[in-house]
């Protein structure tokens, strides 16, 4: 199969290793990956802020970029949800509505793609560590992805998967919410981050780099301010994307 990689703008600039890990896994499974360099952003920031006319323009660009793709796969629950769930609403009543529905049907989140589309749970990975999984809200509630990442993690050799006591709580990122209402966002990071750290895990796995940014940002600050032991165990878990574990590229 030829897979078109959908690399969210901040993955492109801030966590490129996640995009490369996705390609590594898919190629290992025998598929070819293409990166259409004309892609820029899914338009979610403007959409979430309510500037739908602006978001629409960005969406139309994305539709043009991915026209004709067999499958579009992205390592971000929130960005994939934007294309899959919200593009049809954003473009309803415009001449682009059909194209939006068409693209939505061919766009997948990475873990979802492996398990539901390719029917694969074991990619031959090994990761001898204790990990816990953070359910990103867009992936969980817009894309209904819950079990797939866990199936993939359970198939990884020597990996110990534990669950925190707040699996479905939001990390508090929420896009611009994290800086428009920073005190609430941080309180939410405390709750979710605290719960994840208390599992005593070595790695926090996520399918959403924006959640990773938030959680890692809070954990890192806790560590440098000396309050990490209060959060639990004194361990400083690292956040990592599911694709990196499956690709075996965690440094």
């Amino acid at each position, binding site marked *: 199969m030829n897979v078109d990689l959908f*690399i969210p*703008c901040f*993955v*492109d*600039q*801030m966590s*490129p*290793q996640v*995009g*490369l890990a996705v*390609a590594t896994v898919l190629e290992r499974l025998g598929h070819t990956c293409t*990166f259409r*360099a004309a*892609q*820029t*952003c899914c*338009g979610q*920031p*403007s959409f*979430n*802020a*309510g*500037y*739908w006319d*602006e978001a629409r*323009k*960005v969406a139309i*660009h994305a539709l043009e970029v991915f026209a004709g793709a067999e499958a579009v796969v992205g390592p971000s629950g929130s960005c994939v949800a934007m294309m899959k769930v919200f593009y049809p609403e954003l473009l309803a009543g415009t001449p682009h509505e059909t194209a939006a529905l068409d693209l939505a049907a061919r766009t997948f989140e990475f873990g979802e793609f492996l398990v539901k589309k390719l029917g694969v749970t074991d990619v031959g990975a090994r990761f001898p560590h204790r990990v816990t999984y953070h359910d990103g*809200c867009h992936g*969980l*509630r*817009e894309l209904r992805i819950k079990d797939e990442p866990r199936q993939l993690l359970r198939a990884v050799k020597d990996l110990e998967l534990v669950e925190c006591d707040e699996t*479905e*709580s*939001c990390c*508090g990122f*929420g*896009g611009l*919410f*994290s*800086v*428009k*209402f*920073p*005190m*609430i*966002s*941080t*309180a*939410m*990071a405390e*709750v979710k981050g605290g719960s994840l750290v208390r599992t005593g895990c070595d790695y926090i796995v996520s399918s959403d780099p924006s959640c990773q*940014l*938030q959680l*890692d*940002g*809070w954990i*890192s*600050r806790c560590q*440098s301010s000396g309050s990490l032991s209060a959060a639990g165990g004194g361990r400083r878990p690292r956040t990592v994307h599911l694709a990196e574990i499956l690709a075996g590229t965690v440094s």
Partner: protein
Amino acid sequence: MTQLLPHPETDYPVVMLAKTQFLKDAAAHVRDSGHRAFVRKALGGYYTNRDLQKARYRDWEHARDAASLAKWSAVNRLDELLPRFVANFEANGGQVHWARDAHEARTIILDLLRAAKAKAIIKSKCMTSEEIHLNAAMEKDGYGVVESDLGEFIQQLRGEPPYHFVFPCMHVRRDEISDLFGRHLGSAPTDSPEELTMIARRHMRRLYVDADVGITGANFLVAETGQISITENEGNARLTAALPRVHISISGIEKVVENLDDLSVLLPMLATAGAGQPMTCYNTLYSGPRQPGECDGPEEMHLVLLDNQRTAILADPEQRDSLHCIRCGACLNVCPIFKNVGGFTYGTTYQGPIGSVITPHLRGLADWNHLSGASSLCGACTDACPVRIDIHHHLLHNRRNAARTAPSRLERLGHRLFVVAARRPWLFAAGGAMFRRSLGLLKALRPPLLKDWLASRDLPAAPASSFRGQWAARSRTRHPD
């Protein structure tokens, strides 16, 4: 510059913009980790019980579909069903009064109290009465009112509004209640919730017997039979509507259901989602005042039907389903915003996710849209709602409506600039590269937004090259030509 006008509902002067107040209160509240932990602990029992009850349903998700259909069909035929309800209620001897807004509702009720020569008024839980600020108006007119619901009674003594529209005093510790009762009722200190409840019970008993007017709310208005349905656990609403001579009920116009049978779905689901119970203790249908042959009951029953901007929400087909709300409070119970900022921070009658959706409609979008913005759109609320209201998406819709009618010009400019770049891949890539290279400097300079992030969280260093750069290099090594 927005003018600070008197509050439209209470006429009290507004000291600062609602948004400023919200940010101030939120900041103060998130620092109170003791309070947050207390509320979290209080909700723990609810989650357990809720899940136990949900498991008793043979399929909770399918039941939600049915509940959603029941309210959708009622609200979308309100033009037919509300008059039908009224005709049936009046045929049972009930008297209906219509109020276009809060002021009219207060006037009607004060007139009823005057006509009844009311001396002692007992009230059971009624969020609609909170919405119209009824207690303050009654007290101003010289009436003593006692809230009989234990949580509302505690809040009344504390001089606070309800913290949560189902659990009004969930933030209050038992030692605080003991002090409160000691000061107001002269009771001995105790740390037993049972004893505290008995103190309130004993105090309230005479009030039920002596009251001449009882004021209640209504959970549902049944069009088929002209009955109002009241859901409660304590029995105080039953007592309020049993013993006084006059019964006044207040309800929003949207509470209509078509058939009595709809309650066979809605009553259990209201209890399960709202309180983790199979049914609440008392679910009562009132047709009207006491009938010939019945040995007790009020001689008069009045129902005040309130619009107060509900027809404005009705007129928005996209958000009309927010009128399906059965006020169970499940969305509050799962909302991370609510759990972290607390009920008072919202500054509204209805808190939490549903409150954030409807308050801009009830009180004005420009001033209250920050409630729609104060959300990460996690969607836990929508998942929890027993009648499938699309709550978190309506927050998005409110944001869109605000951007159209009252945009922030600076913000809109920012988004427009982003669009210019996003449609030009070379420009977008160049901008991204510039961001990466200057991140270190930006962190030192701390411009707005970045400053807010860095106040409480770190940001990693930018990588040396972007994905597109590394991909291009990767492709070259694989396919050199």
